[in-house]
């Protein structure tokens, strides 16, 4: 039997079918590949945004606890800080800006249990918000992260002096955290964690735990003077020598030890004076006071706190 006619490689119908199949399959395949790529890029953008926000918060943290002039919590809470932080990010601001990331910094009002202005301690919540345009999207994404900062540690850390050679500081008590200071007539110094002697202030009580074994100990008092006189009559910062009474109760011997000590030439800058209180064991209660309250009031005495150091 003989076949008739020629064999066609493709008929038009088959060609159309192939075109339709390709027309359906190719966009779907390309679309899937594009989606996978977009998701990967978005994941990477999320990581970068997270890293950028972390870098901003690290810088905020460092600046908030920086005692240098122009920095500290006051600088961080300043509205201009958002611009000031850019050169402090070590080139990261430019790097991320070129990649389409923008940032904002928000600072809350005082928060927390100690938001009471009378306490002198301030807590703020700083938020770093990073915005960017995700790959293949028309709406901007936003990532926020925050950190709580306060001026209390900054003040404490920046004003207390180092211990005497061979001694190690075991405890530092901020004056603001001392016992019933308000009732004792002291008042908080604005923008500081220190306390200033008031009309009735005669003594402050600090409760601190000395090392368990008897060891040579020293008590450090960090003070400054805002000048002699009162109000408009007050002269320049600083005061002549002032006499203090330091009493330490040693629970090991169950005895009080009281001694008069003198800090010579208190200046307008914070200074820490160390007093040898001998061997102290167990829990010690330390009282720092003075006999002539009026004299101290006139000198604008300001107390940052007390430290206890033992022999290393």
């Amino acid at each position, binding site marked *: 039997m003989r076949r008739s006619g020629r064999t066609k490689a*493709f008929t038009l119908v088959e*060609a159309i079918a192939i075109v339709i199949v390709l027309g359906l399959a190719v966009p779907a395949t390309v679309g899937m590949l594009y989606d996978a790529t977009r998701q990967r890029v978005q994941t990477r953008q999320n990581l970068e945004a997270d*890293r950028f926000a972390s870098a901003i918060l690290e810088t905020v943290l460092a600046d908030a606890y920086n005692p240098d002039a122009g920095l500290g919590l006051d600088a961080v809470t300043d509205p201009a800080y958002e611009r000031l932080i850019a050169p402090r990010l070590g080139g990261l601001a430019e790097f991320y800006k070129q990649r389409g990331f923008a940032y904002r910094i928000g600072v809350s009002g005082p928060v927390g249990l100690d938001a009471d202005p009378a306490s002198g301690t301030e807590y703020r919540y700083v938020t770093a918000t990073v915005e960017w345009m995700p790959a293949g999207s028309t709406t901007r994404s936003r990532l926020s992260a925050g950190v709580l900062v306060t001026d209390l540690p900054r003040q404490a850390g920046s004003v*207390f002096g180092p211990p005497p050679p061979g001694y190690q500081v075991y405890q530092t008590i901020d004056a603001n955290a001392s016992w019933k200071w308000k009732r004792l007539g002291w008042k908080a110094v604005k923008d500081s964690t220190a306390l200033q002697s008031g009309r009735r202030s005669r003594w402050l009580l600090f409760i601190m735990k000395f090392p368990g074994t008897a060891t040579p100990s020293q008590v450090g008092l960090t003070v400054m003077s805002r000048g002699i006189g009162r109000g408009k009559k007050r002269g320049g910062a600083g005061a002549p020598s002032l006499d203090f009474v330091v009493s330490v109760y040693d629970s090991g011997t169950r005895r009080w030890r009281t001694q008069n000590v003198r800090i010579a030439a208190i200046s307008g800058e914070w200074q820490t004076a160390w007093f040898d209180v001998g061997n102290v064991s167990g829990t010690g209660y330390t009282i720092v006071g003075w006999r002539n309250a009026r004299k101290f009031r006139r000198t604008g005495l300001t107390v940052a706190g007390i430290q206890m150091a033992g022999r290393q």
Partner: protein
Amino acid sequence: MIAVMVIIATVGSIAAALIGQSALAYQRSISQERGANSAALALDRIVAEVRDMPEDPGGGPAIRRADAGSIQLDDGTVIEVVGTSVMLTKPGDQPAPLCQNVSAFELSYMDAAGAPLRPGDPGTPGATRRVVVRIVSNGVEARALVVPRAGLDWRAGG
């Protein structure tokens, strides 16, 4: 038949080009993702080491050597680039690779005020309060800034 073959060839070549380009882009994105993940893991570890570095008895972070390509801490920890790998050496341990296929690794240092310090200078380790880490792996660049907690003044408050 010729017309049919022309049509199919045209459509096929376009489709092949589309799929080829997409596959290339996909491959590139996978490569970049791998590089980004690798760099991110290395950065996270470096940031953790620098952030938690020990405190110098005289105050501040305990850095023994601060170079552009490496940092050595007082406790013996070393982070450095060796060839195309970033290595971490902990005291008593063998060097372990943090990231491979690294084409650039750079450490820059800043003081408390945010001013840049010159890597390798004798005074740089003592003055360093912020460290910026830059790493490029598989063509992906990642940067991070870290503040050693030992350098923050609040620690001195006890």
